[in-house]
């Protein structure tokens, strides 16, 4: 039994890569949970192909999962993996370029068959031809070792046994980084309880992988990554998709409004439908509509009926919902539209991330039809964003667009669980009776310019509303009056603008108050911006950061903030959409940094953009 040397590490970035059929996402998820349980801070970046199950061994069939974990608090899944687990040649080929020079490659030797090498376009076996000399390569016959480990298990075929090889890899890497094994073993028991053979095979493979690291000479060292400092509390690891779904359920619970979620499946928004449909015991109604137009109308109908009407989709579906959203603007009913942005235009790259729907959210409808917009900026923040979107929608009787992103939806991070009692209360304030001496005026507005919400069922409040222009301040009857139309237009705009009176001011992080450059962000760039600013400050640059949560209306102090810095940089996963809004509104010569590659901005990229502007 060789003794192994233990090294401390504070940052590790591991990427698991293999065939879509190899279960890399599952492997990554399990490794993430074990890591979370250990108290490391972490961020993940799943990356799967568009194809469901592309032919084995092909380059476009590669599925990958990256996790960055650390003993300090971290903000991004990491620009470059330090460790690459490659289950076959295609996985190596498509991911090697991202690996840090001198990084570690753990390859499944058995996957490097001539057939697979050819499919990946390798003339020779890179594990043997020295082309990986710049890296630390561990070639491990994972498949055969797995098969061996599972021998004698009752009722398991060789094919099934081979499928357990991802658990071998998981075991091995778990050993390398001292991850707890019990969490994973417990999960296997639970998950495959009904299929004992599979359960036992996976268990055996996992242990074999772990022991392989422990016992063989191949690995001289393994690593320890201490728990990251964290505020006291109970934590869980959560993805943006789950957090958003739970946020809607929380808003429903806090408002007492039954949640009605109507949606038409679309990547990456479908996960919201999937998650919500599992929680009917919360009184959640999920409706898979015939298309996005129907989904939006169903949610609006539910809203008219006094439910919490929500519809969710991604870019192409947003295009289709615009007309209905415009109707909601005219009806002034509470409704939330979730847009999990993906790479466009058109069908684009459905599984890749982008944040290029902001201007559509602002201006995607004909005529003047303003509405509030909230944008989530971390996976866990999707929970708060959902609650805030609902709060605004209900208080102001307006449709609200909630922007998320593919990256936020799929990525995960540790989340300190809030105390339910501390969540904002949301008051539906349904109209109880007539509001104008004995009469009910559906467009008589309150101090927030919001109109009464009077769902069917209350005697005396019968009323009719529609998309034609209406008398703007009391009856809501159809009106073709010229001045009323202008008044109505101004009122709809004023109501949205008014929200800024109560939303928090834009907070600026300017450690020494002497920054020369403000980096203003929104959405998923949050982590990258914080990380890059940190690095730049470390290098002696004076940088301030601020991040938007409310995209419309903007925080009331943003003009001041922008004007108080000589330089403003706005990094976006689009061609400069917030940039346009800010420049038009405040006439500040803000500059943009744009990346539209279907992946997040890397800290090093942004750091460079910051520093070159300050040198």
């Amino acid at each position, binding site marked *: 039994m060789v003794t192994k040397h233990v090294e401390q590490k504070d940052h590790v970035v591991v990427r698991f890569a293999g065939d879509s059929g190899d279960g890399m996402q599952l492997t990554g998820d399990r490794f993430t*949970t074990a890591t*979370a349980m250990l*108290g490391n801070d972490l961020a993940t970046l799943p990356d799967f192909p568009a194809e469901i199950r592309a032919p084995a061994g092909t380059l476009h069939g590669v599925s990958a999962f990256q996790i960055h974990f650390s003993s300090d608090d971290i903000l991004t899944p990491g620009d470059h993996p330090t460790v690459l687990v490659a289950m076959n040649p295609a996985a190596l080929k498509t991911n090697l370029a991202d690996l840090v020079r001198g990084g570690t490659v753990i390859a499944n030797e058995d996957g490097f068959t001539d057939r697979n090498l050819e499919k990946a376009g390798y003339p020779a076996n890179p594990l043997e031809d020295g082309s990986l000399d710049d890296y630390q390569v561990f070639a491990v016959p994972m498949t055969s070792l797995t098969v061996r480990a599972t021998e004698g298990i009752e009722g398991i075929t060789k094919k099934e046994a081979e499928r357990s090889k991802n658990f071998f890899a998981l075991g091995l890497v778990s050993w390398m980084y001292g991850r707890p094994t019990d*969490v994973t073993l417990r999960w296997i028991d639970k998950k495959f309880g009904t299929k004992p053979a599979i359960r036992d095979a996976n268990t055996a493979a996992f242990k074999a992988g772990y022991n392989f690291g422990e016992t063989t000479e191949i690995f001289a060292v393994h690593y320890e990554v201490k728990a990251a400092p964290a*505020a*006291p*509390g*109970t*934590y*869980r690891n959560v993805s943006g998709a789950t957090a958003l779904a*739970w946020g809607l*359920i*929380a808003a429903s*619970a806090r408002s007492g409004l*039954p949640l*009605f979620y*109507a949606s038409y499946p679309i990547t990456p928004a479908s996960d919201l439908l999937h998650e919500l449909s599992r*929680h*009917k*015991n*919360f*009184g*959640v*109604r999920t*409706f898979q*509509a*015939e*298309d996005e*137009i*129907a989904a939006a*109308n*169903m*949610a*609006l*109908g*539910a*809203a*008219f*009926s*006094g*439910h919490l*009407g929500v519809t969710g989709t991604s870019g192409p579906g947003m295009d289709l919902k615009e007309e*209905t959203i415009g109707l909601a603007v005219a*009806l002034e009913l509470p409704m939330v539209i979730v847009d999990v942005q993906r790479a466009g235009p058109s069908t684009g790259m459905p599984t890749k991330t982008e944040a290029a729907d902001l201007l559509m959210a602002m201006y995607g409808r004909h005529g003047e039809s303003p509405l509030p917009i909230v944008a989530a900026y971390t996976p866990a923040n999707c929970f708060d964003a959902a609650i805030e979107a609902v709060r605004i929608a209900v208080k102001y009787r307006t449709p609200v667009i909630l922007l998320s992103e593919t990256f936020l939806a799929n990525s995960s991070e540790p989340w300190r*669980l*809030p105390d*339910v009692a501390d969540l904002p209360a949301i008051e539906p304030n349904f109209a109880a009776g007539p509001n104008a001496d004995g009469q009910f005026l559906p467009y008589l507005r309150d101090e927030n310019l919001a109109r009464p919400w009077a*769902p*069917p*069922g*209350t*005697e005396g*409040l*019968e*009323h*009719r*509303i*529609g*998309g034609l222009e209406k008398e703007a301040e009391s009856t809501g*009857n159809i009106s073709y009056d010229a001045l009323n139309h202008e008044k109505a237009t101004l009122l709809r705009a004023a109501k949205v603008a008014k929200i800024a009176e109560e939303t928090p001011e834009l907070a600026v992080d300017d450690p020494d108050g002497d920054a020369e450059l403000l980096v203003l962000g929104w959405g998923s760039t949050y982590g990258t911006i914080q990380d890059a600013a940190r690095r730049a400050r470390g290098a002696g640059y004076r940088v301030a950061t601020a991040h938007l949560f409310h995209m419309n209306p903007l925080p009331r102090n943003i003009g001041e903030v922008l004007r108080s810095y000589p330089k403003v940089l706005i990094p976006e996963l689009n061609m400069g959409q917030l940039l346009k809004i800010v420049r038009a509104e405040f006439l500040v010569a803000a500059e943009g940094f744009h990346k539209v590659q279907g992946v997040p901005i890397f800290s090093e990229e942004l750091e460079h953009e910051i520093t070159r502007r300050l040198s």
Partner: protein
Amino acid sequence: MTEGDGQGNGQEQAGGEGPVAVELTKKDFTSDQEPRWCPGCGDYAILSTVQGFLPDLGVPPWKMVWVAGIGCSGRFAYYVDTYGVHGIHGRAPALATGIATARPELSVWVATGDGDALSIGGNHLIHSLRRNVDIKILLFNNQIYGLTKGQYSPTSPEGKVTKSTPFGSLDHPFNPVALALGAEASFVARTIDNDRQHFSAVLRAAASHRGAAFIEIYQNCNVFNDGAFAAVRDKQAGAQKNQIRLEHGQPIRFGEQGEKGVTMNPDGTLSIVDVGEVGEDRLLVHDAHRPEPSLAFALAHLAEQPVGPTPIGIFRQVSRPVYGEAMDRQIADAQEKLGQGDLAKLLHSGDTWSVE
């Protein structure tokens, strides 16, 4: 259960509270908005019949919702003094589905046109029918686009000359009843705007039907398509002899003195016959409750256009699970099995860890 005795569409609720305290009258369903249709429009007759019928239903105005799309027909929602939404073009069935699914106890009605429901809204119509959502759909079929001033619609006959087809339309029209049957509708009927009695009877049956009811109403647009239904609508044009009034369980006969009838041939095709010649007992007996929709479908095709003998009445009326109720049941079941949702429990479910 058999049809007809259903207490769907808001009546349980109303009934649940015992007979509605106040006697309801037509006035209770008449809003303060003055109708703005063209003088002589068939929509006036429809409005008056509906407002005259609703009080009998026993559902108070505040438990009823009228949803309409865009079109002359769409204005309907403003004139009935209940809760109402005038939505966007073609989407009324989807909007109404949201309402009826969220609040199954409400009585939800849809007023729509041949363009609204069959052209832009065709998809929502067929999906609401197959799901059997508890909504009552009134299709104001005037075979024309009225509000946009006279283009042909999906029900206009081939060759129709309109503003958009000066050389005649090339489109083969839909047969709305057949389309609804092809879309798995559980209740399908046809009536005529100016036949108050027949129209009211159909409304009554639709209201008591549990699930989606589809009613095609021949509606005269006297400005852009006057007389399109003369053969079955105008006494002078001999409407009597052309109206084939379908009655469940009755042999199908028609004509001034019922001298004509419908028989089914061995190959399943239908023929119009002289009752005198073939004898009453050879006549086809209408069965609206037959689970399999082929008979209703054959009757729908007895007349492709209402220019000669044309069936009106209830083609099909069968029992199927009601969408909104089924969803409520799923929720009740889930709450029974999993218990009322507990937010804190949800947040703490699965793997968590604590930091002191």
